[in-house]
């Protein structure tokens, strides 16, 4: 099992009022599985992804990735696991616009502290697979939305993580481009990756192995 979320809870204090965002969330994801989560804005979808990635500390419960419990107390260890075991794709792409495509893709590898020939070849391979190899030396700022999201996916893959977290990756894209991005994410399934995706897109829901709706702080299997 790649991801195992057990009884996660999280409470936020917003405008002086304490609000339970997550309340006993359970989730399991096997290798090669795709899980999509939908829900209203502010229901806690991003918070759940941040907890899984080790960025936000949960109020209770535990997260296991690749069979090992996520440690929140030591930021150094949580960050190291986020860097090596998790790939993150965002709605706003989060690319370094002044950098080239290749430099963006290699960023997680640089933080890991290792860019050998093998890593560069692997980055080229991903760019080729995502059909953006020709933009390798182009500045990210001048790419289209779809191309930027492809670069973001390539960056998420460069350290060969087993788990990909995608937070509304197609929200800023048109329907056709969104479909292409979804197809790329679906392709990861064959590579044995587990993909957890937060989206409101019906096409993705239909393609996913697991579909959940987040309501009242918990996950409910969608019909």
């Amino acid at each position, binding site marked *: 099992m790649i991801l195992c979320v057990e009884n996660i809870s999280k409470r936020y204090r917003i405008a002086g009022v304490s609000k339970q965002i997550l309340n006993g969330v359970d989730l399991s994801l096997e290798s090669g599985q795709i899980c999509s989560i939908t829900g209203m804005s502010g229901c806690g979808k991003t918070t759940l992804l941040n907890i899984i990635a080790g960025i936000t500390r949960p109020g209770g419960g535990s997260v296991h990735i690749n069979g090992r419990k996520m440690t929140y107390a030591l930021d150094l260890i949580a*960050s*190291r696991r986020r860097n090596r075991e998790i790939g*993150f794709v965002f709605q706003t792409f*989060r690319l370094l616009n002044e950098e080239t495509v290749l430099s963006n893709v290699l960023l997680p590898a640089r*933080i890991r*502290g290792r860019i050998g020939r093998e890593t560069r070849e692997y980055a080229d391979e991903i760019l080729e697979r995502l059909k953006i190899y020709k933009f390798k030396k182009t500045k990210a700022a001048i790419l289209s939305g779809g191309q930027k999201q492809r670069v973001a996916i390539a960056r998420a893959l460069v350290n060969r993580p087993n788990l990909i977290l995608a937070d509304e990756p197609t929200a800023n894209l048109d329907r056709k481009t969104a479909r292409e991005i979804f197809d790329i994410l679906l392709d990861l399934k064959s590579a044995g990756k587990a993909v957890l995706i937060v989206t409101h897109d019906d096409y993705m829901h239909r393609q996913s192995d697991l579909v959940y709706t987040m309501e009242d702080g918990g996950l409910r299997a969608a019909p």
Partner: protein
Amino acid sequence: MMQRLYLMLREVAGSRFVSCIVLLSVVLSVFAVGLFRIAGDSLSSYIHNRFASSIPPNTIRISTRQPRTLFLFETSRPGGPVINDRVIKRIRAMEGVTEVLPVSALRIPIQARVSYLGFNYRSDILAFGVPQRLVAGELAGDRYRRLWRDPEREQVIPVLIPRAILQSYNDGMAASNNLPRISERGAVGFGFRLSMGRSSLRTLDGHRDMDAVVAGFTDQVDSFALILPLALVSEYNRKFVEKYRNEYQYAYVRVGSHAAMLRVSPAIQRMGLVVEAEKGVSQQIMKLKETVTLIIRLLQSIIVIIAVIAISFATMIAVFNRIEYYRTLRLVGASRAFLTLTILAKYLIIGFAGAWVGAGLLRYASARVTECFHLTGFMISVSLPEDAFRAFLLAGMAVPVLSAVPALVRLYVKGLSGD
């Protein structure tokens, strides 16, 4: 490791515009603070040169306490300590004292005999002995200076006459008795006889008549007695006075600075001696120096505060300007420690470079200004003192680094965790 180092170096080059603003604020701050430091030092030096050095501190006159009296007569010896060699040595050891010049009374009968153009005049007189250093400027020539050191050399006693005596003679005695007025210039070198150990009242065994010569006139010793070499007076006192103890009637204490004048006077007073010193000028000069120093320090502090605020704001703006970049790094796996190290290293390098450039500019500018302007008495230091240079480098690095800390805290507490 190399890749992490690469990311750190890239961070220094990143966001060039804002980094340049931080760099510029450090450069200008160091330049401004340094300028005030140099200006302050120059102004202090100007005051020192113009006032403190050119108006030397007055001499302190010390004496023993007044004895008790009954009608015309003293009933006891002066109270408190006497001025002897031990006391002189103690005062000489005080910080700021440059020299102590004792004055000793001749304690034997002495008579002067003047013969001039058939006119003979004989008078009992008083005499004081003083060291040559006290009256060196008033001895009219090298011959008299040599004689003052060694009267036996020519068997002639050099004598200094207080100007008060000359004035009293000219304005009082000469006018009322139809005698000629005596000029200072004409009187120098005038010879007469001194009877050491004899007066109209008493003659001591072994008294001796000696030639004497007027060696000049003096204002240094405020008395109506003739002024003789101290060594000679001590010798005659020892020779004729039974159980003679080498005690001085008073002494002049010279100090090196106005600050020393204000420090030494009360210290001598605490020893039980009477102190007469004109401290007014010293107090005014010290007050002027202190006021100017205070104003300079105040201005320097204001400039430092403004500089720190400017650098702090520039640094905080720079950190927040890069917040999206830091968020991205964090989301793809950068730890807080790595980010903190990267950001602090960036501002350490910028601060160091800025301080170095600022201090360099200051050195260059002060050198150019010194070349171009020559203000009388106003010396501008060409080079920044080494300790100030080191302090600027340290502060130039520390201020941006410390200013980045609140921004980092805010970054981690509020800004970095969510997308």
